[in-house]
């Protein structure tokens, strides 16, 4: 069953930065990009499970803090030559309240 969960306020997340949240048993990283978009992905690098929320955000991608794998935050795919993919989650920001909701 899918659920819609309020996970944060926009102000909780710095630009070019990330915060993590646990929803049910899934750890999710929420990113706020320079272009204003806010994206949610599974907080687990496909390589060795590194926490992507801790990585450096560059454009629309995050670099895993453990071995520098570059993960595209929109598609969830690792950049070649690395191979792998993480789950992405639908996310909505309420323009008025600044509430961030994700659907899981």
């Amino acid at each position: 069953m899918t659920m819609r969960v309020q996970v944060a306020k926009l102000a909780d997340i710095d630009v070019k930065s990330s915060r993590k949240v646990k929803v049910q048993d899934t750890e999710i990283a929420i990113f706020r990009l320079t272009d204003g978009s806010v994206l949610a992905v599974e907080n687990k690098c496909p390589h060795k499970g590194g926490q992507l929320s801790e990585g450096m955000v560059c454009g629309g991608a995050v670099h895993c803090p453990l071995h520098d794998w570059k993960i595209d935050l929109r598609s969830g795919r690792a950049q070649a030559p690395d191979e792998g993919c993480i789950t992405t989650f639908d996310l909505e920001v309420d323009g008025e309240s600044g509430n961030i909701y994700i659907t899981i």
Partner: protein
Amino acid sequence: MAERKKLVLVGNGMAGVRAIEHLLKLAPDMYDITIIGAEPHPNYNRIMLSSVLAGGTDMKEIIINDWDWYKENGIELLTGHTVMKIDTGRRKVITDAGVEAEYDQLILATGSNPFMLPIPGADKEGVIAFRDIRDCETMIDTAKTYKKAVVIGGGLLGLEAARGLLHLGMDVSVVHIHDYLMERQLDEAASRMLQRELEAQGMKFLLNKHSASLAGRRRVKSIRFADGSEADADLVVMAVGIRPNVQLAKASGIEINRGIVVDDYMATSVPGIYALGECAEHRGIAYGLVAPLYEQGAVLAKRLAGLETPGYTGSVTSTKLKVSGVDVFSAGRFGEVAGTKALRIQDDLGGTYKKIVIEDGKLIGAVLFGDTSDGAELFSLMKKGESIEGREKELLLGISANLLGGQAPDAAAKYEAMADDEIVCGCNGVSKVAITDAIRTKGCTTVSGVKACTKASASCGGCKPIVEGLLKVYAGDAAGEPVKEGICGCTTLNRDEIVAEISRMRLMTVKEVMNVLDWREKEGCTKCRPALNYYLGMLYPEEYIDEKESRVTNERYHANIQKDGTYSVVPRIYGGVTSPADLKKIAEVAEKFDVPMVKFTGGQRLDLLGVKKEDLPKIWAELDMPSGHAYGKTLRTVKTCVGSTFCRFGTQDSIGMGIRMEKAFERLNTPAKVKLAVSGCPRNCAEATIKDLGVVAIDGGWELHVGGNGGVKVRATDLLCIVKTEDEVMEWSSAYLQYYRENAVWNERTAQWLERVGLDAIKAALEKKEDRQALVSRIEKTLSLTTDPWKQIIESDDLRKNFEQLSGSGALPARG
């Protein structure tokens, strides 16, 4: 498109799945694939089981293909199923659970079974093999409650099992039927050296013993030998050999001998059925090592993909023993039989042994003990089968004839001689052939191109010289004119050009630099962003506001991230000198926050490991000690020896000097980490001559040594100068560090920097008193503006929030 054919693989082990991986690359849409495995796990690296036992490797880490891999590749996986029957007429297999799978092509990769000695008592509890994850788990559990372990079998597998059990804290005896260990891989001389080494590690040996029976009621208690002697045993591990698992093939009417008989294309006697791996017998040999299995897999994959391929002609195998502290290599036919000649050197002092065996002018076998660095080269010569006449002694001594004759060694020949499967990049597991492929077929002509394609040299960078060497040999002229490389893939500008442009145009932020200098990636990458952040801070210490988003993880959170996402905390302990009060405080904090490990670092301080990110600010607040900056490109530690304060040899107060330096330079941002040491006399107990800056006291003065490194590439320091007073030590050290700050490339340690610019250039820059003083005043300016980062975070809600996990409020029903 043609309809997909059905491919069934029986056996979910390394050999079969490797072949499937190959096949998927060659012909991704050709087959519907079903894999049937008896073990309840995804495909794992069986070779690594001994690493799991020896500690340091988690069971999860040895999984090669996790469940998702099967899903992503559309493979149907049945685990916990044993195939009972092949209906070769109707072309289908039937499992013990009654599931049927039809096939057009069938691969048997059923592996082997451990051979269990059929002696009385072998069915008792506590008697196991060393073959799969379950055996490993049994060993780990047993070690918790029992003490005595007996391993039957002094071969490769037995010794690895024994080493693992030793590690688990058991008292281990190895029983071997032969009078020396690993007789199939080693000659007696090397074997004796191995035995001595393992005995020193605590292993016991019962050689020349025939196991007769196992005694005990329900559980084994002891082992009895044919000569009447006995030994206590709470656990018996049988590692006497493996037998190809041929049962299924045999029952299905496929020709078997010791293994399932296959031809050079891995085809069995029944059309449409192939076999490979440990269950297969090719030209009379059933291999039990991994390299041949991979070679067979490559041939089979091409065959199944319908591609032309030369057949498999058998493998020359080499063995390496994976036991910590023991390096053993053996390959080919190393026994000395009629018609062969052997050359050997044995060094009992250094604990090394080397033997090469020659027949008809060709190298046919080798045994190495202690130092196995020549193994790969010898093995590749052996596989090539070319004549080595005239070079025999050179190979034995490891010194090239050219070099003996005073000529430079032929570098190209060295790279050509490297075996294809030799691992070049140890961090990312990239073999020579992966690199040469990238050069030949993907048009890589630079180190960064190879790095992007294969990841070789992407981590520690220690293998970069080899990658460069391979480029010279395999890219030929294309590599002769390397394309101009910028500091990363985002720009073509190098460090000096960037710094010059920043100064010329007075660019003030990372974003501005990237915009004005036409960065290809608008927001840069993990290489250029931190570099630009550093250069800007170095150029404008007063105006520039450090951008935390452009710091790598460790520097952003002022702690070292560990592989499980926890962090470590290292408080500053000036000069390695602490106090009972500080030790108590550290101990109390460690207890209060359940810190999983407290460890002394190599830099004379304490590391609290395994700290949850949200606890970091709380721990820092309770410690109330400055950050040790153990995570950054900055001054790390100043290691000191006791010096004249207590030591009877000390000529100067090295502790006082070290503390003064650490207090002066702490928090300094530098291009790469900087490690210092001060020794109180030329005995140099603080190991100052492998530091970025090392100070060694002499009678009446101090020597300043620079550009040392004890890490990726060991480099001893060069002597910069000798001075008389502590104040002069500070002046020269400050000037040297600032000159490094202003001239080195980001992430370039002093050792690489010094090699690049030369000691003379550095000496010249520091020679004049006024130049030194200008540098000193600039470093002092920078240092005066630093603050303790831990304190800063504790005091700022805005910074501290990034350490907390979001709570996430209640769930709402999904819309739509």
